[in-house]
């Protein structure tokens, strides 16, 4: 037996921003204190452990093939931007609505005097806040750990780069987050298709030709000037202007979120009892 989610009474709905703020508060709290966040926090702090290991290796005079700054740049471009942040976005953003459906709690949200647009916007903002809360401290600590030992002025000189990296990560999270939010409202079980998108479709970014332009990865990587994959593969890498990349990611974020809001607002959800 199934029951239809009650139709909304929009006559007395709260203002958009007030409602979104309320949803944000609830969702931020739920996201931050979850096992998912614990797992992702450990993943995102991995570079700090690698930084400590790097210095330990130097302290015992083990031969390393890269410098601390190289390691920081590799971690930013390959670990965070290419792998960890899209995964963080996948696990949080696909579950914004899917978790409510799975836990059969969506009814409670939809019967409140709030618009569906404010629900999804509040949840998306909570995802961004949670992801940035977990990511940015790890990036900054990792940067300080790997760059500061180069000497006086080294970290100070890298301040613009640190700020740029943080902005690039924010945009990466926003774009992947919007794409996965869309996937989350479209599909009942979005994680597997999301993983396929990340590790099969996004692989196109490494191929020659025009195809990489249809991936998010190539634009996220284009925000950063760090050297790309060493080897023959670098011959095929598409180099795009950073502002083009930033504009594309911002457009994808806005379009993905608006589409997701449109679908979520018009869809009828059936809750099995």
């Amino acid at each position, binding site marked *: 037996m199934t029951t239809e989610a009650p139709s909304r009474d929009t006559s007395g709905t709260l203002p958009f921003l007030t409602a979104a703020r309320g949803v944000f508060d609830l969702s931020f709290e739920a996201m931050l204190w979850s096992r998912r966040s614990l797992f992702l926090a450990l993943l995102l702090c991995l570079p700090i452990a690698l930084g400590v290991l790097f210095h330990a290796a130097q302290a015992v005079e083990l*031969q390393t093939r890269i*410098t601390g700054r190289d390691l920081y740049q590799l971690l930013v471009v390959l670990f965070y931007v290419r792998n960890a942040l899209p995964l963080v976005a996948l696990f949080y953003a696909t579950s914004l609505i899917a978790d409510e459906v799975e836990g059969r709690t969506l009814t409670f949200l939809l019967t409140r005097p709030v618009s569906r647009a404010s629900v999804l916007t509040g949840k998306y903002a909570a995802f961004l*806040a949670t992801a940035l809360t977990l990511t940015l401290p790890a990036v900054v*600590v990792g940067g300080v750990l790997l760059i500061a030992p*180069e000497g006086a*002025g080294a*970290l100070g000189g890298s301040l613009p780069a640190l700020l740029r990296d943080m902005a690039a990560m924010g945009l990466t999270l926003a774009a992947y987050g919007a794409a996965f939010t869309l996937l989350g409202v479209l599909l009942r079980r979005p994680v597997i298709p999301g993983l396929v998108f990340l590790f099969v479709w996004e692989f196109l970014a490494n191929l020659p030709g025009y195809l990489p332009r249809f991936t998010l990865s190539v634009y996220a990587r284009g925000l950063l000037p760090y050297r*790309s994959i060493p080897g023959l593969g670098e011959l095929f890498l598409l180099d795009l202007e950073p502002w083009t990349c930033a504009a594309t990611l911002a457009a994808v974020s806005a379009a993905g979120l608006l589409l997701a809001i449109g679908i979520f607002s018009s869809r009828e959800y059936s809750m099995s009892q």
Partner: protein
Amino acid sequence: MRGRTGSRIVAAAAGGLVILGLGIAAVDRLLNPSRVGPVSAAALAMPEDTRVLLGVDVGKLRDSPLLDSLSGFLEEWLKGDHGRLLSELGIDPLESVDEVVVGLRPVPGGTGLLAVARGRFDLQALGKLADGAAAAGLERRDTQGAALHLVTRAGAEPAAALAFLDGADAVIGAPEDVAALIGNRARGLEPLRSSPGLVAMLQAIEPGAQLWAVDGDGAALEQLRPYTRRLPFPALPEIDGLAAWGATAPVLALDVIARARDPEGARSLADTLGGVLTLARLQSGIFPELAEVASTASVAVDGRDVRLGIRIRKQVLDALLARLERAGGDQ
């Protein structure tokens, strides 16, 4: 602690950590306010027509395995006029000096060289030594803007000059160049800042470099053009500037940024470099060291900039040097 307050505390702690990290970086930056890239304020007073700058962070190099390779060059330099001047004053460049910036500029009949050193100089002791050495042809000048200004003479003509601007900055070079730098500094002028190409390339150098070189208008690369024309690659595009820097620990890390005239030129240069590296990687059978160096090398394009990065492990460097030595012996 769970709940809304707990979430806010976690978010505030995360924000605090980010602000602390960025604050440390900002303080570090504020402590070196007058620098342009790795160049100190004193070196910025070099003459405006300086085309190429070279720098060495002696403090970091002291513990470097590269020091042995440089010691021969240093001994040769110490035998010249500038070196004799230092040894008469009892200055050991490796002990008293922390960083050196050398400026090269075109002068009639060759290249003018002016070096600015930062370190720890005991002006009182140096003054006494200078007075004692006056009989050996050392002339002490009373110059506004310099704590101690000395000139050596080769017969009637001034040969080299050394000036201590204060206890931390010294300048050595041709007497007229040293006098010009002292004058610029006394008037608060920093002529190098008016060379946008040089400043842009200096700012491209990553902090922490132990050795670096900057060519503000690509003139140095132009001198290589006759040789690159013989290579089986397309002609290299015009270059507006070049910056190269390196660190010796934990690996020998070399980075070069070439600034092309336009993004197309940059892509063309990157393609050429990529082709050269690919060929080098295919030499593993006959030249494994070169193949390994090429396998660690990477080329990236960022607008007009082409960046080449090379990392060389000590074992590979030793093998390369040994091979070069053998090749030299065979000839």
